C-alpha cells in the first residue's frame, strides 16, 4: 500500500510539473497548424486529398508525440536534482526504483494525454472534411501510443546518463534512425562474414525497431486492417522494450550518486 501511495504521489507531482512545461502548447499549436492547413486545402481529387491528409497526419502525429514524450521526460530528474527536491524525496522512506517508476508513470500520463488531444484534433479534422476513416487507423494509433511509452522510458534512462539537451537530441536522432535498423540490418545478417555479422547482430537485437510501430502505408492507402491478434506481438515487443529500459533505469539509479 505504501509503495502504491509513493508511486501515486511521485507520478501526480510529475504530472503537475510537466503540465507547466512550455513545449506542450508549442506542440499543440504545431498540430493545430498542420490539421488546419490540411483542412483548408481544396486541390487534388478526393482520393489524392485523402492520401495527402493521411500522409501529413502520419508524419506529424508520431513526430510531435515523440517530441512531447522526450521533452516531457528529459527534464524531470535533472531538474529535481538541480532544485534539491530529489534529495528531499530520497531522504524519505522511498526506494529509488519507486522514484523511477513514479516519474515514468507521471510522464507517461502527461504524454498519453497530449497524444489523445493531438489525435483527437486530427480525427476531428478528418470528420469535418468528411474523409473516410481508414480501416488501419485504430491500429496505427495504438502502435504510436506504444511508441510514446517507449520513448518515455528511453528518455528517462538517458536523462540519468547525460544532460537534458543531449537526451533530447539522442532520442530525436533515434526516432529517425530507429526506423531504418530493421530494414538495413536484416539483409546484412544473412550471407555476410561473421566478423561483419556480429556487430550487425548486436545492433539488431540491442535496439528497438521503430518501423514496427509505423503503419503509414496501410493508413495512407486504405489497406484492410489486419486482425488485432496480429498486432499483439508488436505491442508486446514495444511494451517489453519499455519494461527493459525502465529496468535498466532502475538499476542505474539504484547505484548512482545524486
Amino acid at each position, binding site marked *: 500500500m505504501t509503495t502504491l501511495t509513493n508511486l501515486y504521489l511521485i507520478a501526480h507531482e510529475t504530472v503537475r510539473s510537466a503540465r507547466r512545461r512550455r513545449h506542450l502548447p508549442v506542440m499543440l499549436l504545431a498540430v493545430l497548424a498542420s490539421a488546419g492547413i490540411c483542412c483548408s486545402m481544396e486541390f487534388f481529387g478526393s482520393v489524392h486529398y485523402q492520401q495527402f491528409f493521411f500522409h501529413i497526419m502520419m508524419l506529424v502525429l508520431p513526430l510531435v508525440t515523440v517530441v512531447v514524450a522526450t521533452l516531457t521526460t528529459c527534464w524531470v530528474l535533472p531538474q529535481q536534482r538541480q532544485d534539491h527536491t530529489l534529495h528531499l524525496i530520497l531522504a524519505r*522512506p522511498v526506494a529509488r526504483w519507486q522514484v523511477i517508476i513514479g516519474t515514468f508513470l507521471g510522464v507517461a500520463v502527461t504524454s498519453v494525454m497530449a497524444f489523445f488531444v493531438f489525435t483527437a484534433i486530427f480525427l476531428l479534422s478528418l470528420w469535418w472534411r468528411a474523409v473516410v476513416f481508414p480501416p488501419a487507423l485504430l491500429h496505427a494509433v495504438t502502435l504510436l501510443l506504444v511508441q510514446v511509452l517507449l520513448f518515455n522510458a528511453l528518455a528517462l534512462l538517458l536523462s540519468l546518463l547525460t544532460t537534458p539537451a543531449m537526451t533530447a537530441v539522442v532520442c530525436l536522432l533515434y526516432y529517425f534512425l530507429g526506423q531504418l535498423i530493421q530494414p538495413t540490418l536484416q539483409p546484412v545478417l544473412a550471407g555476410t562474414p561473421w566478423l561483419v555479422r556480429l556487430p550487425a547482430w548486436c545492433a539488431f537485437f540491442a535496439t528497438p525497431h521503430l518501423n514496427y510501430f509505423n503503419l503509414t502505408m496501410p493508413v495512407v492507402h486504405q489497406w484492410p486492417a489486419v486482425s488485432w491478434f496480429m498486432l499483439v506481438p508488436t505491442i508486446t515487443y514495444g511494451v517489453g522494450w519499455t519494461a527493459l529500459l525502465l529496468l535498466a533505469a532502475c538499476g542505474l539509479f539504484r547505484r548512482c550518486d545524486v
Partner: protein
Amino acid sequence: MSEPAIQCVDVVKDYRGGLGGRQAYRALHGISLAVPQGQVFGFLGPNGAGKTTALKILLSFIRPTSGAALLFGRSTQEPATRRLLGYLPETTTYPEYLTAREAVMFYARLSGLARGTAASAAADALRTTGLREDADRPLKYFSKGMRQRVGLAQAIVHQPACLVLDEPASGLDPLGRREIRELITHLRAQGLTIFFSSHELSEVEAICDTIAILHRGRILVQGALAALLASATEHHSRAAALEALFVNTIRQDDHAHESVSDRA
C-alpha cells in the same frame, strides 16, 4: 548507555575521474563520529572540507567507498530507516505552483502518513514554523526566509527522531537567523537529535552541545563544546573562543600538511 542517534564508522569516500576512473580523489579519509540521542551536533569545516559528502553519505544520496553510516544502529541505505530522519538542504527550489500546505503535505505523505494524519501534521508543522497565516499562499510569493521555514516544516512534519540541517540559516537576514535558531532550540527541547552543518560559528556556539571540525576529509576535533571551549575561554570571550578554536585547528592542520608536502 543508549545507542547513538547517528554513527559514522570509518567512512571513506573516493570520487573517481579520468579515463576509466583511474584518477581518484579521496574526499573522506575514514571519518568516525557518534552523535548521542537528544543532542545538537555541530558539524564544522571550511569550504571543501567534505561536510557535504559526509552529509550525503549519511542521507544515503551517495554510497561510501568503505565504512557505514548508521541511524539508530540501522543503515540509512534502507528506506524504512529514513522514516526516522528529517532533512533540510541548504537551498531548495520548491515548485512555485504549490502552496506551503501542499508542499508540506506531499512530503508528509511520502513519509508514510495517511492523508488525514498528513493534513493535521502539516498544519502543526506550519504552525510550529510560524507559517499558519501563509499556509495557503503559493510558494512563489514567499521570501527566502519563509521558504527556509517551509523547508524546516517539511523536515519535521513526520515527527522524526533526528534532524539533519545543512546550513539552515544560510542567506538569511539577522531576524531570519534568529527565528531559525529559536526554532531549533524549540525542537531540541522536544527531544530531537539535531545534526547541524554550518559555517556560522556564532550559531553553533549558541545551540550546539557537541561539535566536530572537519578539514581535508578528516575529523580534527570532536567532543563536547563546553569542554573544547574551556581552555580557549582563558584568553578569549566565549563568543570568540569557538572561532579561535576553529581557526587554530584548521591552521595547524594546514601547517602540518604543508610540512609533509615539503618533505615529500
